[in-house]
Structures are given as structure tokens and as C-alpha cells.
């Protein structure tokens, strides 16, 4: 019998080792961030991580600032992102399209460490980041893209002309673990997302172990085959978010 359900978030991330390469899904919102997986990884302590994420995150102190536009009852306290791990000094390298706060008064943990030379950064546009991750899922080691020639992202990369236009060679970004967020799952690991599917659906299957944090695990057969966004073949572990939010990332759930 297939049952990919994991009993606790601590169990879900238990085997993540130092120096692991990790995909962090979502797009900087409490409703698409794998917050409980991030907080469990923070407690677990693995370090020297390479984080692949669209944004290097805001961290625990500023995460709530992400949603100042929402009324209080829609502003969850249980929102943690890769910035928490940067704050704790667990990140060695980031591969991202957003690395710093977009205003001068917003200085995030990864940015602080970057200024001090404590972390490495590979800045890449969002489209190439998404495609490089999708290639890892699809077994494609490299592709040529028309996006990036004559800009900073082209540095050190092969340039080749197709249809008279310059293209750069981009390589797949595979990870050891993908931490993603979905709305519903069944025990086979089939996933359904609510709203924009962001990097969660892109990263599912692009890592050796994909772990999905979901709002709800539903009985097998509840998800209509046509509606499944990510087939279970891409997902190794699923875990349901707690019904009552935990107040601090240090608290197990």
C-alpha cells in the first residue's frame, strides 16, 4: 500500500543533511509558502545549504510585512520563508531572482549576510530559474534561451546564435529536496493547488525527494483525475498543516 503521509514536520525533514541543495516553493505569500517545512528545517539545524528560491525571503521578523494590506484575521502568524534560515546562518548559497529588499529601508537576512560576504549569490531571472528547475524535473540537462544575452546573467555562459539571435546556455537546477506547498493531497501524493501554482508546481519532481505541505489530505479517489495538477509520481512525502497555527517557528507541530 502506498501512503506517503508523514506524521510530523520534524519527521518530514529529518534526513536533510548539511550541504544539501534545496528548492523552496511558493511566491512570498503565506498562502503558497511551505512555512511549516521551513520552520521544521530551522529546528532540525542542517547547515551550509544551497537554497533555490524565487526570493531569498524576508525572515521571521519581517514576514508579516508581506501582507500589510490584509485585515488581521487574514494575516497569519505562521508564515516562514527561506529568510528564516538565512537569519539563522544556515544558507551558504542562494540561487534566486529576488535577493534583496526592494526598498532601502527593507534589509533582509540574506541581504545582510551578502553585504558582509558571508553568503554566495547566483542571481538569475525568474523565467530562466523556472525553466532550469522544470528541466531538472524533465531530465533535460541544458537548454538555450534568448533571455539574458548582453546582461549580467550571461557572464561565463556559452553564447550561441539561433535564427540570427544570441542565446545563452542554461543548465538544469536539480535539488536534493524540494519543499513545496499545495492545497490538497491524497496518499499517492497527487496534488491540487489553489490559485496561481507558482514555483510549487514547478519544483515538484525536480528534486530527489519532494515534500509537500498541504492544507488537507483527502481520501484516495476524492481528487478528480482531470483536476490533479501534480501527479503523485513527482512527490515522495506529504504532510498536513496543523489546524491551529503554531505561534513560533521553534514550536514543533
Amino acid at each position, binding site marked *: 500500500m502506498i501512503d506517503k503521509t508523514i506524521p510530523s514536520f520534524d519527521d518530514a525533514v529529518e534526513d536533510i543533511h548539511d550541504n544539501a541543495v534545496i528548492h523552496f516553493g511558493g*511566491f*512570498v*505569500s*503565506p*498562502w*503558497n509558502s511551505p512555512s511549516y517545512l521551513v520552520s521544521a528545517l530551522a529546528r532540525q539545524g542542517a547547515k551550509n545549504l544551497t537554497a533555490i528560491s*524565487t526570493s531569498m525571503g524576508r525572515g521571521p521578523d519581517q514576514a508579516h510585512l*508581506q*501582507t500589510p*494590506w*490584509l*485585515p488581521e484575521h*487574514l494575516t497569519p502568524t505562521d508564515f516562514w520563508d527561506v529568510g528564516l534560515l538565512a537569519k539563522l546562518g544556515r544558507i551558504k548559497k542562494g540561487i534566486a*531572482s*529576488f*535577493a*534583496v*529588499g*526592494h526598498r*532601502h529601508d527593507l534589509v533582509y537576512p540574506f*541581504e545582510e549576510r*551578502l*553585504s558582509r560576504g558571508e553568503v554566495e*549569490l547566483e*542571481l*538569475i*531571472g*525568474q*523565467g*530562466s530559474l*523556472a*525553466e532550469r*528547475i*522544470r528541466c531538472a524535473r524533465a531530465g533535460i540537462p541544458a537548454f538555450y*534561451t*534568448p*533571455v*539574458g*544575452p*548582453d*546582461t*549580467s*546573467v550571461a557572464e561565463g555562459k556559452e553564447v550561441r546564435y539561433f535564427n540570427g539571435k544570441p542565446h545563452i546556455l542554461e543548465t538544469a537546477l536539480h535539488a536534493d529536496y524540494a519543499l513545496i506547498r499545495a492545497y490538497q493531497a491524497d496518499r499517492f501524493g497527487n496534488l491540487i*493547488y*489553489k*490559485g*496561481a*501554482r*507558482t*514555483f*510549487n*508546481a*514547478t519544483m515538484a519532481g525536480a528534486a530527489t525527494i519532494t515534500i509537500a505541505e498541504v492544507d488537507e489530505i483527502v481520501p484516495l479517489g476524492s481528487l478528480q483525475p482531470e483536476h490533479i*495538477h501534480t501527479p503523485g509520481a513527482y512527490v515522495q512525502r506529504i504532510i498536513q498543516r496543523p489546524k491551529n497555527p503554531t505561534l513560533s517557528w521553534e514550536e514543533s507541530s
Partner: protein
Amino acid sequence: MNEPERLTREIMAMIVTRDLFDGAIVNLGVGLPLECANFLSRDKEILLHSELGLLGFGPVVNDYRKADPYLTMVGGVPVTAHPGMSFMSHDESFALIRGGHIDVAVLGGLQVDQEGNLANTQLIGKPAGNLGGAQDLAYGAKKTVVLMYHTTSRKEKKILERCTLPLTTPRCVNRIVTDVAVIDVENQGLVLREVATGWNAEMVQSITGANLIIDPELKEIEL
């Protein structure tokens, strides 16, 4: 000589939306370009796209108590559901962009030059920039419109012979809409098409760092 009044951000946005065709698929960058979402013509069906995997959403939510947290565009801005809306993954969203399926990208700009090069990602005093999806949008959209103030808050010129900041995307800008003018990037250079009320070609040229070719049919901006 006192400078004539410049256009408001609302009027700037309206210039952009004025020119969108019925059925256009449009991506609005964060900041100033997002203002366009508030001035879409009700006579036209414009489909807005957002990078995180959202196509055809409705206006930005004004009453945040009514916000659906699962329905936000880039920047975390809540938007409304709209008939015909669809969701997708990030990779599919950029397949849509890179593959040339977006009609118009409206982007902010720090600098644009006479070759249509765009610089809009540098953050002064920061250890790195933020690229976001700007490179893909500027390359992939059939038409790239830069919506920006004509000069910086320190009166520095932003439309130049050659960008001095790191490029976001080379040779991508088709039109520049500012608080004083509408300028097209053509093969022969920058063509001044329209000026704000009270402005003339000379005055626009004086705050522009590249030579402007004056359209023989130069007009005052009308909405």
C-alpha cells in the same frame, strides 16, 4: 523659466491603457505600471497576466476585507476573480512570456536608451539587484512599453544615448511613456510622438539625454 506642469501617475497610466487593443494580453510590472490596472477601458476586454501563474484576473481589490488570500498578483497585491481567468505554474507562466504569447508588457524603468536598451533592476546601495521577471517580459512581450518619470527625483536624465546602469534586457523597448511625453523607439532612433499640455519638443529635449527625432505630426497628449 518655470517648467510646465507634469502629468500625474494616473494620467500616465491612462496613456498606456488608451492604446491597448481589445483582447490584448498584458503584463503590468510592479510600482507605476500597476497603476494601469485601475484605468482599463470597460469597452475592451484586456487580459492581465501575472508571473506567478495568473491570467485574466480582475481589478485590484480596494476593500482589503474582501481580499481572497489565494488570489494575489506579484507584489502580494490582492486582485479579484474574473470570468475566464486561469491559473498555471511558474514554468508555464514563463513559457507564455518567453514564447511570445504576451501582447504588451508595461515595465518601470531606471534608464532607457536610444537603442531601446532597458535598465530597471539596479538598486543603489544594495549588494545585488533584483531581476524578477523583467528580463523575460522585456524580451518576450510582442510590445514593451516603459512607463516611468522622465527624470529622477534629483532631475537626472533617464532617457540616454546609452544606459550607464547594468542592462536588464538589450534592445527591447518599443515605447516610452513619461510624465511629459510619449516616445517611440524606432530603427532610426527615438521619435517624439506626443507631449503633455504646455510642453513642446524643445522642452522635452532639454531634459532628455539622447537626440529626439520630432514626429512631423507631433501632438499634444490626449486621452
